[in-house]
């Protein structure tokens, strides 16, 4: 087991170096550099710097150095000082901006993931054990619809319907009158009337696909002889189904649980933008639109690092739950 984990971690190191380099390249992709953007920003506020000053700044910040040197400076600052650089647009440290919004992002994503699983697993099991029943068809239709309807469209439609029928504007995390107020019971209650939409949208979107996966896995497992053996031993249906095939059918869930980590961090970007939620997603979008590349690149770097960690985590979990994997 230890050697397996060791091997997985060994794989993670080159991957991490690779992804950090890719992120840096993405930062460098747009034409111009930090100084060009800085000068443009100064011009917008009525100030200006001369060509010579620009050149001096470039020399001071080492922007004329080869790409690899610049990359090393960027990555070493991150590793040794946790300094992701500055966001030009917000004029503050990138890490501050991200941590500020991370709490809500994590809360919404975790909750919606829990809901997704709470819906998907029982429904998938039900659909498989009662194949071709009325509810199986209902859930199948639901699954296809969930696959076809983009999340942001569902969010838009829900928002529109609550606006027309309940005359409520559910965009944002709280209603405008609560914005900037300290947290109290009234504000919390107001938040609850807003937060159900992103949760519903994200949970149904995720559950639609997972129900299909769970159902297919369960159908494969239910046909295996060990299930029949268990019935022959005289166990009730509930015991048989939940104790054996469900555990095996959950394997693909475990192997993708690690991927939820980067998804948790980014939240669902488009849904958050549509619903105007103060999570990390809209921040990333804004950064990308303004070509605030240090902020955007750091985002992509953090996402990628989470991805690598997540993959290692789910591999370890898989190995724990399935001995065949760790001995192969």
């Amino acid at each position, binding site marked *: 087991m230890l050697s397996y984990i060791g091997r997985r971690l060994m794989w993670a190191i080159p991957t991490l170096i690779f992804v950090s380099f890719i992120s840096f390249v*993405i930062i460098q992709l747009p034409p111009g550099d930090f100084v060009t953007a800085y000068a443009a920003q100064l011009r917008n506020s009525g100030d200006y710097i001369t060509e010579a000053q620009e050149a001096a700044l470039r020399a001071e910040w080492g922007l004329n150095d080869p790409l690899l040197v610049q990359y090393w400076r960027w990555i070493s600052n991150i590793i040794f000082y946790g300094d992701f650089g500055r966001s030009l647009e917000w004029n503050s440290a990138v890490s501050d901006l991200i941590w500020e919004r991370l709490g809500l992002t994590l809360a919404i994503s975790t909750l919606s993931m829990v809901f997704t699983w709470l819906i998907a697993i029982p429904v998938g099991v039900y659909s498989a054990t009662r194949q071709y029943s009325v509810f199986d068809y209902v859930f199948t239709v639901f699954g296809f619809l969930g*696959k*076809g309807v983009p999340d942001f469209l569902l969010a838009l*439609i829900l928002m529109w319907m609550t606006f027309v029928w309940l005359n409520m504007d559910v965009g944002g995390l709280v209603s405008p009158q609560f914005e900037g107020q300290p947290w109290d019971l009234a504000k919390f209650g107001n938040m609850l009337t807003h937060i159900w939409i992103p949760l519903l949208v994200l949970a149904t979107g995720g559950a639609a696909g997972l129900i299909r996966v769970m159902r297919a896995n369960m159908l494969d497992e239910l046909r295996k002889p060990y299930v029949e053996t268990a019935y022959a031993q005289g166990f009730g249906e509930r015991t048989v189904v939940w104790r054996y095939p469900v555990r095996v059918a959950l394997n693909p869930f475990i192997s993708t649980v690690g991927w939820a980590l980067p998804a948790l961090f980014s939240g669902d*970007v*488009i849904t958050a933008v549509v619903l105007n939620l103060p999570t990390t997603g809209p921040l990333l979008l804004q950064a990308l639109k303004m070509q605030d590349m240090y902020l955007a690149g750091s985002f*992509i770097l953090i*996402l990628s690092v989470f991805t690598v960690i997540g993959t290692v985590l789910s591999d370890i979990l898989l190995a724990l739950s399935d001995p065949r994997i760790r001995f192969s």
Partner: protein
Amino acid sequence: MTDLQILPPQSFTPQAPPLAPKEQFNADATYTAKPWTLIWWRFRKHKLAVVSLAFMAILGFLALFADFMSPYTPNTISRLNTFAPPNVVRIFHEGQLHRPFIYPMKRARDIETARVIYQEDRGKVLPIRFFVAGETYNLLGLVETNIHFFGIDDRRQQINLLGTESLGRDLFSRLLYGARVTLSAGLIGVAFSFVLGLALGAISGYYGGWLDSMIQRLMEFIRSIPTIPLWMGLAAALPIAWDPLFVYVLITIILSLIGWTHLARVVRGRFLSLKSEDYVLAARLAGASEYRIVTRHMLPAMTSYIIAAVTLAIPEMILGETALSFLGLGLRPPVVSWGVLLQDAQNLRTISLAPWLLAPGVAVILVVLAFNFIGDGLRDAADPYGQ
């Protein structure tokens, strides 16, 4: 030996079980039919897939001849017709059957809110005519003409099957033109990812070894990053000033950079299972080159699987394009795509004022569902010899 001779000869030839004549015919046909005929027979059983295929064929036709099928051009601004609701096509006028027609819309203002409202004028009938003269356009870029498939004969009034948007442009026409861009973006994106996926999947499955594990790691990694942020990152790096057509091509490439992994996985899996087939070994023993073995012996055996996988990849591309353009990172306004059209529907006030602006969203849903059904049908039909 003697034992064998005692046995009656007929016991050696297996007797066919008695079958009804019709089944007999079917069974014979099944034995002699070509693989593609078999695939088509199996595909036909999936009713939803057949309906979806017909739907996509019609939509493809509409998109290809968008300039002929739409009554107006996508950028015709009509200032006195902003946010007009969809016209209802009717066939009964004052209780009498009539050829398809619409009632003209009367523009008025709400006295309280001063908002523009439209009312049907039930007194007058505007019959829908076919092959009417309208704005000139180049049919498929070849023939200059001004004949549109349908329209109405009226200077003041317009026929807006799906209403109009903030500049009074006809949403139905824009939807058809947008279908061109959105569908072709999906197809081109899939074509790119097809090339990538086939090449890398084939290398990884055929050669195996360290190359295989490198490619596997790469695929795993790409698959696990949330696609939208990655797409956004790449799309945002494209300068705004570039030519829209160039941006369009680049966006499709970006979409396919991530989409190829699924296809590569299917191809790799097929290669792994075909590699050990006897006929491949036979070809190798006969001295066929590697290139010949791959292209002549292995690829034809997986064509149907690849087609199914490609079909299932198209909706992903379409959703990706829509999402990027919706966020303002993909295609930009002079280009008309469904994502660009949906940008108008971002605002809650606008939607409550003009819910028909969500029509491109409905179109996206229908197309994505249709491709999913077709893909499902093809996947079931891909192996016509299986059970």
